[in-house]
Structures are given as C-alpha cells and as structure tokens.
C-alpha cells in the first residue's frame, strides 16, 4: 500500500490513468516541466512528453475551451487551473459552453473532461487566492462537482471523474494538500461512485455534514464532542453535484439534529440547499432547526482568515445550539 498526501495521490492517479488510456492529456500553466505550482502533475511530463502534458500560456479561457474541443473530438483532457480564483477568466467556457454542450446538441455530443483546481483559504492568500467557488458550479446544471477531503477519496473520485462522460469540476482543498498522509489503494481501478458521500464517524446525538477543506475542522469538532460524551455522525459529502441526498436524509432522520459546515460564503451555499432539502423532506423528524456554520458574506480577508473560516469553536457552538434547542 502506498502512503501518500493528497497532492501526491492526485499526481499518481493522473499517471496511472494516462498509462491506462492514451486519450488522456493534461494541460495548464506550468503543468509540464515544472510539474504544476503545487506539484500535482509532477512526473507526468517525463513519463509522457509534451504532446500529452501540455504547458500552456496564461490563458484560462483558452485552456478550458481547448479542453472542450479535445473532449468532444475524442481525447480525455484534464485541465488544471492553478488556483480556483483564476477560473473566472475562463468561466464562460466552463459554465456556458462545457456545461451546456450535451443539452444544446440534443444529446448528440458531450465533453468528457475534468477541470482541476485548488480551492479554499487558510494559506493567507488574500481575496484572489483563497476563494471557494463551488456555489457557482453547483448552480450550473450540466457540470458535476467534486470536492474531496482525503487522499483516498481524491484517488477514487478523480479516477471516476476521468472515466466519466461529463464535464467535472474537481476542487482540491489546497490547505489539506500536504496536511495528512494516508494509505491509498494500489488497485489501478479503484474508483468511487458518482454522487456518493461517506460516513466518517457514527454517533446518535448530532449529524455534522461537510466537505472539502472544512472536513478537517468538522472531524476535529466531532473528536472534541466525543470527549464531552457527545457522539456525532460525520458525513463527508465528497460530491457536491450530485450530492448524496439519500445518505443525508437517512442519517439526519435517524438523529434529528444537524449542523452543516462549509467555508464558502453563506448565501446560497451548497449546505443551504442541503438544509432546505432536509426541511422539505423530513421536517417532522427534526428535533431542532438545521444550523449552518459557513464562511461569511464578505470577500475573503487576509488578516482575519482564521476568523473567516468555520473553526472548531464555531462548529461546537452550533452543536450546542441544536442540542439545547
């Protein structure tokens, strides 16, 4: 079993998939010789050369647009956007073109492609290097959106995304890139199903739901609660579009209390959608209103970035609210 960090697993999975399928190409700024700004494509250039690992100039719209063209015509591109904050110059290509291609062609063509992008705060990057853009993408039917939190999940979801037939936005929590190492599968076919979340911990007192970078604090909060004798169910959504409604409703109906955690701004946050679905579907099973712990409706601040992120204390406070309701 290989023991790897998140970012190492991304590189290894790309390597394995490129070996398996010669239609896979990787493109983006400095993804080739440099191996990517975060080294997520390290080793690929030496293994596959410049025809399949393509260093592009600084042109996000053309990177994503070219990936669409490649995908439609038989390649399987994986584009890298160096930070998710830089996707916006390429937003039209992703949101108005890639997402709608199948629909607007009446199902006659489609774009099997992945756009990878490190996202999220906690690295003191300020407002152009810390954003969580998932809301824009989950609001775009036609895209699939993944935001895994662990090396193992990165491995399985990335492979599923690359083998799928639809355009996938693959968000990577950059502050967790090297935070933990864990065993990842050596099976070159290890995949994870589309749209399935995972239970990280089981408990009867409260359900904590999160995804991506905020999973770190959510899991820590659950451990702190356990010390006080409060047992939390912890759900990692992993896939945000589609998200695992079945798992969420089943666990929340069982426990009756839920706290939802996400570091993106609060308004129209994906967890607001999850909370609304819970309210619509199983209101009568709830012991307390769902509580969201999110980033704030402000641009991402530099000095106060720790205050902005939903930290363990804010999660614990929310849990107290739903328990004492």
């Amino acid at each position, binding site marked *: 079993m290989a023991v790897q960090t998140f970012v190492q697993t991304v590189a290894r999975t790309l390597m394995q998939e490129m070996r398996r399928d010669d239609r896979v190409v990787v493109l983006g*700024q*400095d993804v080739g*010789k*440099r191996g990517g*700004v975060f080294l997520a494509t390290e080793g690929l250039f030496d293994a596959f050369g410049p025809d399949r690992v393509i*260093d592009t*100039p*600084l*042109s*996000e*719209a*053309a990177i994503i647009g070219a990936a669409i063209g490649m995908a439609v015509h038989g390649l399987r591109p994986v584009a890298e956007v160096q930070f998710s*904050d*830089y996707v*916006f*110059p390429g937003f039209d290509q992703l949101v108005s073109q890639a997402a709608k291609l199948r629909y607007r062609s009446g199902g006659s063509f489609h774009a099997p492609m992945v756009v990878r992008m490190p996202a999220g705060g906690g*690295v*003191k*990057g*300020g*407002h*152009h*290097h810390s954003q969580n853009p998932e809301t824009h993408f989950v609001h775009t039917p036609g895209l699939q959106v993944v935001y895994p939190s662990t090396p193992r999940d990165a491995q399985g979801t990335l492979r599923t995304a690359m083998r799928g037939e639809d355009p996938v936005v693959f968000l990577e929590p950059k502050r967790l890139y090297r935070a933990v190492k864990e065993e990842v599968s050596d099976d070159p076919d290890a995949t994870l199903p589309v749209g399935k979340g995972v239970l990280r911990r089981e408990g009867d007192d409260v359900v904590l739901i999160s995804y991506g970078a905020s999973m770190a604090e959510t899991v820590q909060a659950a451990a702190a609660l356990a010390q006080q004798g409060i047992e939390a169910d912890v759900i990692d959504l992993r896939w945000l579009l589609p998200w695992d409604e079945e798992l969420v409703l089943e666990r929340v109906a069982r426990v009756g209390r839920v706290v939802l955690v996400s570091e993106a701004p609060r308004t129209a946050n994906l967890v607001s959608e999850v909370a609304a679905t819970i309210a619509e579907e199983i209101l009568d099973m709830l012991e307390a209103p769902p509580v969201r712990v999110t980033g*704030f*409706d*402000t*641009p991402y*601040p*530099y*000095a*106060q970035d720790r*205050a*902005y992120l939903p930290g363990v204390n804010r999660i614990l406070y929310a849990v107290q609210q739903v328990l004492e309701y």
Partner: protein
Amino acid sequence: MSTARTIPPAPNGAAAGETPPPDALLAMYTTMLTMRRFDERVRDLSAAKAIPGYAHTYFGSEAIAAGVMAALRPDDWIASTYRCHGHAIAKGVALEAMAGELYGRTTGTAKGKGGSMHVSDFDVGMLGAFGIVAAGIPIALGAALTAMRKGTGQVAVAFFGDGAVHQGVFHEGAGLAMLWNAPVVLLCENNQYAEATAIEYHLNTSTIADMACAYAMPAERADGMDVVSAYAAARRAVERARTGGGPTLLELVSYRFSGQYEGDAQGYQPPEEIARWRERDPITTFERLAPERGISTEALARVADEVDRAVDAAFAAAERAPFPEPDDLFDDVYVSYP
C-alpha cells in the same frame, strides 16, 4: 527563434538630450534603492514566516517603476499587479502603510484585508494591485477615459507582465484603448518569465511590442534595466497620451532575479543566465554610471543612509501596529447595505 531575450546592451539607453538633471536622477536612485531595501526586508521576513502568505518581490525591475513614475504627474493613475511593491513605492504609497498591509495590521493600506498582493492608495493615484493577471488593464483604461471626459489631462498606466499578454482582457483593453484614443500606457514589464514559463516558450511574436501591430497602436521596446532608458521611453509614451495621441504599448525589458514568489526555488532559471543579468543590475549600473551623470559617491551614500532609516522605521512601526479585530472583517464590503 525568438529574439526576445537578446536586447541590445544599452546602459545609456536614453537618446541624447534626454538624460535628466542630477537631482532628478538622484530621486530615481532613491526610489530604486527604497524598493530594493524594502523587498530585501520582505524576502527575509517571508523566509522567517513573519510575513504570511505569498510575497512577490521586484528584484531586477526597479528601474522600470522608478523611470516610469518619474515621467508621471502625481495625479496620474497606475494599475499594478500582485508584484506591486515597487510600483507602490514609486507612486508614493507610504512605506509604513505598505509594511502594515504585509503584516496584516490596521495601519495597512487595506487595513490588513489585502496583504502583499493588494496594496492600493487612491490618494497617490495607485488604483490597486490585482492578484488576477491582467485584471488591471481595462480598469486603467476606464480611469484614462474618465480623465479624457473630464479634460483633466491625466494619464493612466497599466502595468502587467510578459505572461499577461495571453489573457483576453489584455487584447480587449488594447482594442478599446485604440478605438477610443484613450490616454493610457500599456506598460509591459518583460522580466522574461511568467512563473516557470520562459518567454521563448510562451511568446510567438519576437517581441511584446510587436503585438501592438494588431491594434495599429504605437509601440516601443526599451531597456528596462537602465532607469534613464526606462524614463525616456515612458516620457515619450506619457506625452503622447497627454497630448491626445492615444495609447502606447511600451515594453520594458528586465529580468526576474528572484523566483516567482519568495520561497520559489527558481530551479528553472539557469544560474548562468541569472548571473549574466545580474551584471546589469539596475542599481549597481546606476552607481557605476553616477559620476559621468554628475552624481557624487557621497550623494549616493547619503541616499543609502536615508533609505535604510526610512525602511527600518516603516517596518518597526508596522510591527508595533495593532491587528484588526476579527469583527472588522465585516467592514467595507459595501458602501451601503440596508
């Protein structure tokens, strides 16, 4: 084969008669040395983790900001990039407020909300630093159009790097600037790298100035490592803009001595190449040429002393400045919000 990297050695780059008088030159030297000392401090504080986040230093391009800003009026506008320290210093942003911003303190230019990549100060015409490559170009264009409309005679300068010419907004901005004859200078700092990508790899035209052909825009390419050359070229572009002649694409060629950001190991820049360009260091070049430009060694030493004291004082003040309160993060999102 691109000729982009073989610029003619032009230590005295300015055309005859364009060398400014000694006191003006000494002011440019002061500006350059301030940038250098400021960024040396940033480099050390970044390495020591005293300044968090990503810091982009300006080593090697000091002559550009010093020369360009010397060609501007105080009320002219500039738009900068994430590599903004040099531009901000040259435009007159207070060192203490810059250091405060890097430290994330209330005394910073954005009260600590922006950090190293987001220094701005409208009082001195610094429209801001943009973390998104090329984002400042159309914004500078807008400032220029406003000046045109109001008849103020102001000029706007959009700074961007060699890598930025591959962004759509560069081309959109250039097209509209020409269409409307805007008093804007598109100022490309060609430091020959866009992150790890060398200019030979990413540029199709031989020079960035060549790209102006597509817009029928006047263009010039000049040595960006000699402050007199940078100043003279900027003056031509700025005067053209100010007198109704419209935009110019001005490419000033320099070299990025440091990595892309502090902490970048820079392995993709051949050491011989760095060494070769270091011989043309804008500051030592200036010092070498100072006597023949009528500037004494004593004058240079006096400047060095002043600069050291100013930079020391700025960082000392920033270190003592208060941190913002967590709740301050809610301020300044909107002007008004019901």
